[in-house]
């Protein structure tokens, strides 16, 4: 710690010797001294000198302490004093005024000076700098300023803008090196543009930890936009008295142009061999965005006030342009992301594979947000692309970053800060961008720690840089870099807001695509359901027909169908069939087979003919598909039945108390183009029930089909069929529930010859 209350009689700083390790606490705005290339007066409200820099003795011919109590007109002459009161009255204290001091004893007598006035607390601070003859390049004209601004405005990106600014300021001031230094959100800095003498080492790309420019220095940079150290080896000029008699504190020199510099800063610059330096603040919306840092290695450099003002003006002009260039940069990035997104979504729409399978085969998913890994957790399944840690770690990251966020992207560029354990995987995942709906459904992009990805323009192992430093050097760019590495260890490059936007857009596209597909499925399913699965059988005199369809668990589309319709000759066709497989393909095939069968039957073909024709149809029009079918043609008047079966489980005939399967299929499956059907003929007696079903009723893992069929027969005989067929089927399904993995269909036909009014029971 340093102390403030120990007045130094004749030396700067006005506080105790600083601790170089604690520059965060250094009160740099009250050094109690100025640089020697000008003089400073502090006036009270009646314009009398209260404090003065000690060099007044040389410059004005009167020792500082002797000036105390003297009116400013007496000290500087009527003309300059008039300018001071004019500046104060107009409230414009920022503009320097060029004036000439009256003749007299001091060095500045009769000389042209720049006079700068500002308020500090209750005091008016007047600073004088002699006007030096500028080198030609430092001459500022309206024309040169205007063309400089034109060149700045022609830049398209932030990088170009800063490069141009560095070039203009170097041209204007003559510094050996001019850098543009940009702060990140944590106030760490990076050199993003540089103009330098050809023989100098590049500093471009160097990173500095936030501690290099501590908060109080940043505050000064924010209020006072230029800072010149004309000669790094200067002897600081104390202010007499060092403490303001009214407050007992040193004068606040925050806004002073001559303010003496922190010895820590001087040491830092000396270590780099800097002879003179200047900084120009880049302030955007009242916040320090960056700095233009100028170094001179070939001795002192006196930059005239005009040139400094011009540099400051260019810096501010550039600062005004940053927003626009950042927006342009962002727009470019956004545009790139939206093109990538469009390509991803286009390929999703055109790919029949499941959405996520397609997505995770597309490296553009990484490019979308400049990630190196991406993972998806959905329906209990993990899909990944690129470099990712273990599934367990992925879940841990997801819960750390995603939390309870639903639908909104969240991100972190420092996972270890959220969960220290995650520090171990920083080489693959130091930062994550997460979007999802809770812990069961999320997608996450990952980036490794920054250290691995920084492109080092300023190589920390740079030999020339290392040679310029001896081992005792405490402060240097190399040391700063090492410190910065500590600071950013475990951190990834930050996620930009447009990147969060990009994944939110992707999410919308994905839900849209999933919804579209599920709508498509549902729409097809519903229309098929309407077309194929009759709500109820047609009423036929003498026959009682009842059917029951049960979809597979999860409403997956199945290939079952049943049908019942009357032929022109009065006979009734009942068919039950099953196309192998599930989903839209099976359902579509089923629709075609069912329709074709109707057409063949109405054309007058026999059931066997129809079945053989269906075989050819399936084989030629639906390659790879197979189906089974039972076709019954029943004469309600006589009970005569013709039956053809292609690969289908045998129907059951319930007669009295007995229930027996009919003979098995006369021909193989539809779709094999092999064999021909056989007609089974029999008569359905009064009260006899025919039961036709699909394999969903009898297929059970580990149970052979004969056993299943026997069970079904027994259940059919036992179940109460004295009442409605619907009740009987329900009872049957309770006793022989069938499988839930497959859809199932049961159709029962009862002959009821006595029921002459034609109304089914």
């Amino acid at each position, binding site marked *: 710690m340093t102390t403030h209350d120990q007045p130094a009689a004749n030396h700067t700083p006005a506080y105790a010797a600083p601790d170089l390790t604690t520059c965060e606490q250094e009160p740099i705005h009250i050094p109690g001294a100025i640089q020697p290339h000008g003089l400073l007066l502090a006036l009270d409200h009646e314009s009398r000198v209260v404090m003065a820099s000690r060099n007044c003795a040389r410059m004005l011919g009167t020792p500082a302490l002797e000036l105390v109590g003297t009116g400013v007109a007496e000290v500087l002459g009527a003309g300059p004093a008039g300018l001071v009161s004019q500046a104060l009255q107009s409230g414009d204290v920022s503009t320097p005024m060029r004036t000439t001091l009256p003749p007299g004893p001091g060095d500045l007598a009769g000389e042209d000076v720049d006079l700068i006035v500002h308020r500090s607390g209750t005091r008016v601070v007047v600073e004088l700098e002699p006007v030096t003859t500028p080198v030609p390049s430092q001459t500022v004209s309206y024309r040169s300023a205007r063309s400089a601004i034109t060149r700045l405005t022609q830049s398209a990106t932030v990088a170009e803008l800063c490069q141009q600014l560095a070039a203009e300021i170097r041209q204007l001031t003559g510094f050996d090196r001019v850098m543009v230094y940009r702060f990140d959100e944590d106030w760490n800095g990076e050199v993003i543009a540089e103009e330098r003498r050809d023989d100098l080492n590049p500093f471009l790309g160097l990173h500095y930890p936030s501690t290099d420019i501590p908060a109080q220095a940043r505050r000064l940079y924010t209020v006072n936009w230029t800072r010149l150290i004309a000669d790094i080896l200067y002897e600081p000029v104390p202010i007499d008295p060092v403490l303001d008699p009214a407050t007992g504190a040193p004068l606040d020199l925050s806004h002073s142009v001559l303010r003496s510099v922190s010895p820590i800063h001087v040491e830092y610059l000396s270590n780099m061999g800097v002879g003179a330096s200047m900084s120009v603040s880049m302030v955007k919306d009242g916040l320090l965005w960056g700095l233009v840092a100028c170094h001179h290695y070939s001795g002192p450099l006196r930059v005239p006030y005009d040139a400094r003002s011009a540099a400051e003006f260019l810096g501010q002009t550039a600062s005004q342009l940053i927003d626009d260039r950042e927006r342009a940069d962002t727009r470019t990035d956004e545009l790139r992301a939206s093109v990538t997104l469009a390509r991803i979504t286009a390929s999703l729409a055109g790919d029949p594979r499941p959405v996520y399978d397609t997505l995770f085969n597309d490296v553009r998913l990484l490019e979308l947000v400049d990630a190196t890994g991406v993972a998806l957790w959905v329906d209990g399944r993990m899909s990944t692309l690129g470099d990712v840690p273990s599934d367990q770690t992925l879940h841990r990251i997801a819960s750390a970053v995603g939390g309870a966020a639903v639908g909104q992207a969240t991100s972190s560029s420092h996972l270890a800060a959220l969960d220290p354990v995650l520090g171990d995987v920083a080489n693959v995942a130091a930062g994550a961008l997460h979007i999802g709906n809770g812990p069961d459904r999320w997608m996450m992009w990952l980036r490794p720690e920054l250290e691995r990805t920084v492109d080092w323009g300023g190589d920390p192992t740079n030999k020339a840089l290392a040679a310029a430093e001896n081992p005792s050097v405490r402060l240097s760019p190399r040391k700063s870099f090492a410190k910065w590495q500590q600071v950013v260890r475990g951190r990834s490059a930050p996620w930009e807001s447009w990147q969060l936007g990009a994944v939110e857009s992707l999410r919308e596209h994905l839900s849209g695509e999933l919804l579209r597909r599920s709508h498509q499925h549902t729409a097809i399913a519903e229309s098929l359901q309407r077309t194929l699965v009759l709500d109820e059988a047609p009423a036929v005199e003498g026959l009682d027909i009842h059917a029951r369809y049960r979809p597979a668990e999860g409403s997956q589309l199945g290939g079952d169908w049943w049908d019942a319709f009357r032929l022109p000759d009065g006979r009734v066709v009942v068919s039950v069939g099953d196309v192998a497989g599930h989903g839209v393909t099976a359902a579509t095939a089923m629709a075609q087979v069912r329709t074709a069968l109707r057409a063949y039957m109405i054309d007058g073909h026999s059931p066997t003919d129809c079945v053989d024709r269906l075989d050819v149809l399936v084989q030629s029009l639906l390659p*790879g598909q*197979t189906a*089974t079918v039972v076709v019954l043609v029943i004469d309600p008047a006589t009970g005569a039945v013709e039956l053809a079966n292609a690969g289908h489980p045998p129907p059951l005939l319930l007669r009295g108390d007995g229930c027996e399967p009919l003979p098995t299929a*006369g021909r193989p499956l539809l779709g*094999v183009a092999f064999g021909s059907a056989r007609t089974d003929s029999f008569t359905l007696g009064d009260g006899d029930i025919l039961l036709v079903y699909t394999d969903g009723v009898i*297929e059970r*893992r580990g149970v052979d*089909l004969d056993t299943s069929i026997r069970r079904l027969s027994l259940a059919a005989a036992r179940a109460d069929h004295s009442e409605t067929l619907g009740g009987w089927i329900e009872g049957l399904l309770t006793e022989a529930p069938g499988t839930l993995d497959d859809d199932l269909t049961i159709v029962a036909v009862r002959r009821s010859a006595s029921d002459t009014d034609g109304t089914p029971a």
Partner: protein
Amino acid sequence: MTLTIADSTSGDFHVLELAGDIDVETARTLRAHIVDRFSVPAAQVIVDLSGVDFMDSSGLGALVSGWQLTRDDGTFRIAGANPVVQRVFSITGMEDVFSLYPSVEEAASD
């Protein structure tokens, strides 16, 4: 629950040894595997079902695919079907379509 597929040879035949259950879940994999084996001209394949306990209609569909692919060019034989699987063939009328053998050895030496 699961189906494993192993490739081997017996005589001039490529043998697909299946073990486990062939149901709607595994039939797709089996079909893909069979189609792959039959992508060469005049393929001679025996599907060994001796390790299969259960097969439903989707599994049958996969075998039918194989049979269809070798119809005009190649040989497709099925060996070792247990009675449960055998019954699936007979009920669906496929026992007359497929060339069925009690064992791989018999299928390969026929």
